[in-house]
């Protein structure tokens, strides 16, 4: 289950305790329709509470216990663009 955090747009994933995490470590996994519906309901509550937007479920594989999104799109969403995308500001520029 993923969404964007309302305040800053960050990609987030629902954990078992229904908090949202910025990475895939320990995220909630649904194994059947019933569990999926439960996750959706939890996410919808946070959508209604203006915490996150655009919540949806996506397919994953479990590899050695790690969650790996199946579709390429979801991988890019989870891990960032496939090209260099973070161009940190150096201290000397910040001081300008």
């Amino acid at each position, binding site marked *: 289950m993923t969404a*964007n955090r309302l*305040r800053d*747009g*960050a990609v987030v994933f629902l954990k078992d305790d229904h908090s949202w995490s910025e990475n895939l470590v320990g995220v909630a996994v649904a194994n059947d329709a019933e569990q999926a519906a439960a996750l959706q309901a939890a996410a919808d509550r946070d959508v209604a509470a*203006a915490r996150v*937007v655009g919540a949806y479920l996506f397919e994953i594989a479990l590899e050695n216990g790690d969650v790996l999104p199946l579709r*390429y799109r979801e991988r*890019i*969403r989870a891990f960032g663009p496939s090209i260099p995308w973070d161009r940190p500001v150096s201290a000397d520029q910040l001081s300008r």
Partner: protein
Amino acid sequence: MYAYDEYDQAIVDQRVSQFRDQVRRRIAGELSEDEFRPLRLQNGLYLQLHAYMLRIAVPYGTLSSAQLRQLGYIARRYDRNYGHFTTRQNIQFNWIKLEETPDLLADLARVQMHGIQTSGNCIRNITADQYAGAAADEIEDGRVYCEIMRQWSTFHPEFSFLPRKFKIALTGSPNDRAAVRVHDIGIRMHRNAAGEIGFEVMVGGGQGRTPMIAKTIREFLPKEHLLSYLEAILRVYNQFGRRDNLFKARIKILVHEIGVEKMRAAVEDEWQQIKDGPLVLPQATIDAIAAHFAPPDYRPQAAEQPEVERLRRSDGEFALWERTNLFPHKVPGYVIVNASLKPEGLAPGDATAEQMEIVADLADRYSFSEVRVTHAQNLVLPHVAVKDLPEVWRRLREIGFATPNLGLITDIIACPGLDYCSLANARSIPVAQRLTHRFSDLARVHDIGELQIKISGCINACGHHHVGHIGILGVEKNGEEFYQITLGGSADQDASIGTILGPAVSSKAVIDAVDNLIGTYLDIRQGRETFLHTVRRVGVAPFKERLYATA
């Protein structure tokens, strides 16, 4: 340059404070996303794959150095230190936080910029020839009319809820650098038999899933009637354009369905009723706007420039750069300099805060504080004295913006694609990067000559693939990235839509496929014929045969 009057500034400032309140209410949960979405889109704020994305208009591609410097500041302060110049003379920031957006918009408004008209079913930011006001080949500075249209179209009550978005482009030169034939309305300035300057008006062009070349609806429109005629077109569209089907709502579909004759007649009917009304443009109004675009204070220049001569002879790279990245200026002793945002291995159109600031500094020192943004995702210093070329070249080279590749195979247009865009099927930028690595040998690049590769990550065609000499469209097949190749598209005055070559090729094979097409061209070209001319002469068959023979 056009400077906002009090009225312009007041509405932009008012927009910012309205939006500040809307964001506050959204975060407090008083507005739902459904209520808030149209409000944020009206200010150019999208929600993309990774974060919010802000699209900022650069009307008719003209920026002051102060504006560019401010964009650099925004990149550093609110984003991850870079921005992306797009094919619509906009800039997009990819990593924006909703809660910071009101402050960002206030910072933008300080330099008279905003994200209005960059989204929604309104008349979008009007685009123009990036060399307007400078090019040797132009008839008149088209920005004057773009500005007139901007004032007419911004918040036009009748045209804020059109059936679909509406894009207008204008060129003041016979050599179309604004791709006017693939816009909803394309306008070309020209002289009629009597020697008067007016507009050829074309309608119904577009890209997306149904690409079409605009048809001429009026050969010659006198200047004073520009707005009334456009208003007539928009009214016909507003009345008859299809609102029932999103995919059929653009004016191109209307023109296609009823035919250009009927369209012309309907527009003519409407026009006759409003032609001589309040929309007539008196010469005084045109002159008042034109005064904002008065030429800068050019200085007489010596005919001989020994230092430039010397560098030209001693440095092959400079000579190559001069050959490709400059364009003739209308004033002797000056040239137009293109800064190529297509260095090897980087994302086409991306610029960091430092790069923006250095280009802004160069503009202050060497180009009367003016910068232009091109639909090919490059930047332009429009008025550089020939004597300053060595220094400008050195500084651009230091920041990686002096690759001598303008209009050549590595001057690739690419949309953000799957790396950033939530609508994408496949990535665009990495394909562009791999192509620049494959074609990194400048001698070879120059031997191949004029060639435009354009890449889109889905059928919306933001990367103009339909009108690329070689077009590359990302598709998804069984969860894998594939690319469909088209040949023979063109966006200039002889615009054409490319022909699909055959089955899409895998991501792994796509670079070899382009190389293969180039091989065919080099083997069969006649004399100095360009790639596009070769494709037009022989058709796609020889290219197709060789490409799929090896597959």
